[in-house]
């Protein structure tokens, strides 16, 4: 088989499409970095925890959504079943987090 060196020959339309996709991914990545920095800054500024905690959690959820939908292509077609699974997992995670912060004593 050997290494595939025929890249020049490849379909330029596809290459274009892939490149666009990549550009979008990069923008997304930049926004994730911004979210992260924002979250760290919020904590570094030592603001009131009643605001900070919800905000950083929302930031985290958005970042994770980006990862799933774009980096992991959950938005693309062919991922319907996969999305249901992940939503299921996320729902269980949510229920567990609620329960373990409310009906366990400390």
């Amino acid at each position: 088989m050997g290494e595939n060196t025929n890249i020049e020959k490849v379909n330029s339309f596809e290459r274009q499409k892939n490149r666009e996709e990549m550009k979008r991914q990069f923008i997304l990545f930049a926004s994730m970095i911004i979210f992260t920095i924002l979250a760290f800054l919020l904590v570094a500024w030592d603001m009131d925890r009643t605001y900070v905690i919800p905000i950083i959690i929302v930031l985290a959820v958005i970042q994770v959504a980006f990862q799933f939908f774009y980096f992991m292509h959950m938005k693309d077609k062919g991922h319907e079943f996969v999305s249901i699974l992940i939503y299921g997992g996320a729902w269980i995670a949510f229920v567990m987090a609620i329960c373990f912060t409310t009906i366990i004593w400390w």
Partner: protein
Amino acid sequence: MSLASAQKKGFGAILWDYLTTVDHKKIGVMYIAAGAFFFILGGIESLVIRVQLMVPENDFVSAGLYNEMITMHGTTMIFFAAMPILLGFMNVAVPLQIGARDVAFPFLNALGFWLFLFGGILLNLSWIFGAPDAGWTAYPPLSTQSPGHGTDFYVMALQLSGAGTLMGGINFIVTIVTMRAPGMTYMRMPLFSWTTFVTSILILFAFPAFTVALFLLMFDRMFDSAFFDIALGGNAVIWQHLFWIFAHPEVYILILPAFGIFSEIFSVFSKKRLFGYTSMVFATFLIAFLGFMVWAHHMFTVGLGSVANAIFAVGTMAIAVPTGIKIFNWLATMWGGSIRISTAMLWALAFIPSFTIGGMTGVMLGAATADYQYHDTYFVVAHFHYVLVGGVVFGIMAGLHYWWPLMFRRVLNETLGKLAFWLFFIGFHLTFFIQHFLGLMGMPRRYWVFLEDQGLDLGNLVSTIGAFFMAAGAIVFVINIIYTAVKGEKAPQDPWNGRTLEWAVPSPTPFYNFKQLPLVRGLDPLWIEKMEGNGKLTAAEPLNDIHMPNGSIIPFVMTVGFFIASLGFIYQYEYPIAYLALYGGMAIGIGGMIVRSLKDDHGYYVRKEELEGEVE
């Protein structure tokens, strides 16, 4: 490899064949055989329990041994008898039912089986060194304080077999998503395939919680962490939550496949299409979904607070609705049909009243205020045996009679079958019905002895007698197996006038299942073809080479490695030498993984020419 391999082989060759097989049909049979073995073990343990409780203040076994007995009985029955037998059925039937040549991950499938088997062996090794004694629920601090290594065996055994089960679950999900035959849409899948699918999803979401729980317990016991150590801020209720987040779905993991089996049987033996197919599928999903939302009904008396108790009580009762849909759909399937009472059907028929009683006592337990009385009494024991035996075991027995011809080319003897049924059925109700009253009359469960003059004597005696009827039934069934193997008649390819694809393949089923993938034209594809006078399925593809996976010894070797490593873990904090086993075993296990991933294994082809030569 050639098709001529059906010739006589030596014992060594056969053994090697089974050790290396990745054929789902063989794996299925191995699951069932191993599960049956553990069922007998669990059954003998239950007989010891019942003998101990035959008369008040008995001392047939000691208190410590009694606790080991119930723990091993519960653990063995749930994890090493009921689950594997059901997984066996899935392996045997599902790929055929959906018209697939194989499962998605044959290698993983084999690995899953071996992990289960060695998990079971590990658990039972503990009989030699001191068995676990904190109940199958293993609540800490009792389980963290439990002396000896029993609980360590429990942890490692369940960790091993849990990993195996998870692999099985993933395998079936992917198989059903990607490998259905042309035309086999989701809404044309037989109900057993559906319940397998939903069960696998439950496995996928439930077992990881148990994995974590077991890790926490393992760390606390073996590495001095403090999850459940109250002095260091630990919290033992975390275990209870994690355990039930797993174990409640687990009971539906057990019952849903049984529901699937019954759906097949009611339809075939009533000669009628399953009534309300769509709502059956929907109800299955609903049960699975709700099943994850109700775990705290096992914890009503823990003191979670009235809001939690109220929410979980209502959620629990809600499960009655989808389950009721199923019961009534089965009744409606029989209604207007032409009912043949074979042994398989007999078990299915017995299931309806038995399970309904068990389900209804479940709803009664779900009423939190009443559960303050029922909890941890024999009322609960009665409830769960009604669903576990009256639901799951009856389902297994029904499935065994139904698919025996598919697996072994023999029909089980009907006379012996019916005898076994009646013995078991009568014994079952004798044993467990009266336990409801024992509970209400003040007998808590997990009681090594009950005292004299507490009005509990008669009930317990009756219960014990019933257990022996069950044992007699089980023995007759074993005799039936032997009798059928020796004297039984050869089964035709489609002995029950079946409706689904597993009855459309030649008998014995070729290892590639379908020479040509069938074209599915609707629900109950075989029935459709029969009604249109074809009697056999149209092929969806021209005859072609068939790609099959190679067998491999690696799953077995890896499992042995992890098994040795588990022993190393168990003894590591006493005998430093056990580290040798720990690291050595890990090296074998991981080595197997590395070999597997570095060595390309492209499988092999069954050539078109060979297939043409095959006679039907």
